[in-house]
Each structure stands twice: as structure tokens, then as C-alpha cells.
């Protein structure tokens, strides 16, 4: 029901292998679909920065904690949030296209993130081989 989509558009080589700022190396078009409806859509998103915050949330021992993604490209933070309401999860963004009343399980969100991560890794591997 929730689906993340990323299309790589730019690489900033100056951040390659940097200890912390490696998260700014790759930019692209990032979208979130709820069912078939476009919930979030933004170009020029540093996808590894999103994964930095998401992976902290995935690894945290307290699985009831909310996820807040803070993006360096804007003041409108947190830009994407997964909010836990009695073990149902809702998604929110100040840039969302509509107010989403659909709730998800944590597992659904995590599975969607794994699919995104695999897809991003494939794109990075292809991109690295041609650039």
C-alpha cells in the first residue's frame, strides 16, 4: 500500500567516501505513493541522507519510536515523518500532496523501505559504472 520511488539524476563526486557528508553524493527524484496516489514528489533529494535517518529508525531497539527525516535542503523539517499512533503508523510531510488517513504496520513501511534500498543500490551500481 505504501511505495517509495527514486530516480537517480545527479552525482556529486566531491562527497565520495567522506566520513559524514557522503550522504550528499547522490541526488534524484523522490516520490511516495499511497496506493496509486502520489503523496510526495520532489526532485533533487539526497537519498542517502534519507537512508541515514531511516536506518537509525530501523535499527533502534525501541520499535515504538517515530521516524523523523531532516533534509539539509530545506527549513521545512522534519520533511518526512513516520508517526506511531497506538502501533498504527501514519506518514506525514509538510510537502504532502494530500492528508493521508491510511495507517500502516511498521512491517509494511520497513518492507517498502527495503524494496527502495535494493532499487537505489542497483541504480548506484549502474551509475558508478558509467560515470
Amino acid at each position, binding site marked *: 500500500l505504501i511505495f517509495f520511488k527514486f530516480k537517480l539524476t545527479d552525482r556529486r563526486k566531491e*562527497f565520495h567516501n567522506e566520513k559524514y557528508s557522503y550522504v550528499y553524493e547522490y541526488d534524484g527524484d523522490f516520490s511516495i505513493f499511497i496506493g496509486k496516489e502520489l503523496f510526495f514528489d520532489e526532485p533533487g533529494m539526497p537519498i542517502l541522507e534519507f537512508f541515514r535517518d531511516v536506518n537509525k529508525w530501523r535499527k533502534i531497539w525501541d520499535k515504538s519510536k517515530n521516524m523523523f527525516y531532516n533534509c539539509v535542503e530545506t527549513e521545512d523539517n522534519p520533511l518526512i515523518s513516520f508517526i506511531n499512533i497506538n502501533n498504527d503508523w501514519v506518514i506525514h510531510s509538510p510537502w504532502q500532496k494530500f492528508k493521508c488517513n491510511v495507517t500502516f504496520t511498521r512491517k509494511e513501511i520497513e518492507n517498502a523501505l527495503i524494496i527502495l534500498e535494493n532499487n537505489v543500490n542497483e541504480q548506484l551500481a549502474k551509475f558508478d559504472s558509467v560515470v
Partner: protein
Amino acid sequence: VFNAISSIVLAVDKLATWIQQTLGIIRPFANRAIDVASNYTIKSCHMLSGRGTKSKFNTNDMNTIRNWMITALKNGNNFKVNSKDSYSIVYNMGKIIGTEGQRCIKIVFTIAGKIITTYPHK
């Protein structure tokens, strides 16, 4: 407890910023960023004709924006810690530079002087 921890973290961040500003630690990093700014490619999503919701400069002229960046990095001194290896500055240019009437420019740069991003700030 969470609020208390958040307050402590915020206080530590502010203290770290204040100490680094007072000791003048950040200025050399900003000077490195000035050297880079004249060739920096501003992200298209922050340009006047750019797509998306991010804040946008009121021009597509990259040299104009680069000059604003250099002015801000040279004259600004209100640096803040952005992450473990980066700082940010918000500088009032004294005129409208953004499509939503923003007068300030924000620049985020690393200790190596690499510029992470720049955009108009409220």
C-alpha cells in the same frame, strides 16, 4: 524524560556552536568555502526555473547567486554547527533574493570547504 534529553542535546549543540564561534574555529572553514563558491554549481531545484517545492532564488543567473554566497561567507559570522563535519550560515542580503520574498541566504559547507547546499531562507 525524552523532553529533558532533547533540551540537554539542544543546549550542548548551542554551547558547541558558541565555543567554536568564540574561538574563531569556523572562520578558516568558511574561507575555504569562499574559494569554492566562485565555481559552485547551484542545485537546479533552488534556481528560479527549478522544479519542486524547495525554496528558490529569484534568478537563474548562477554568477549572481555565487556573488551572494561569497558576500555571505565573507561578511557573516553567525555560523552554526550543522553536523559533525559541517556548518551553516544564514545571512541577510538586505534585499529580496527568493521567490517568496526571502531576504536571507543559507549556505551549508563542510570543514573541507565543500559546499553542500545554498538556498533562500526566511
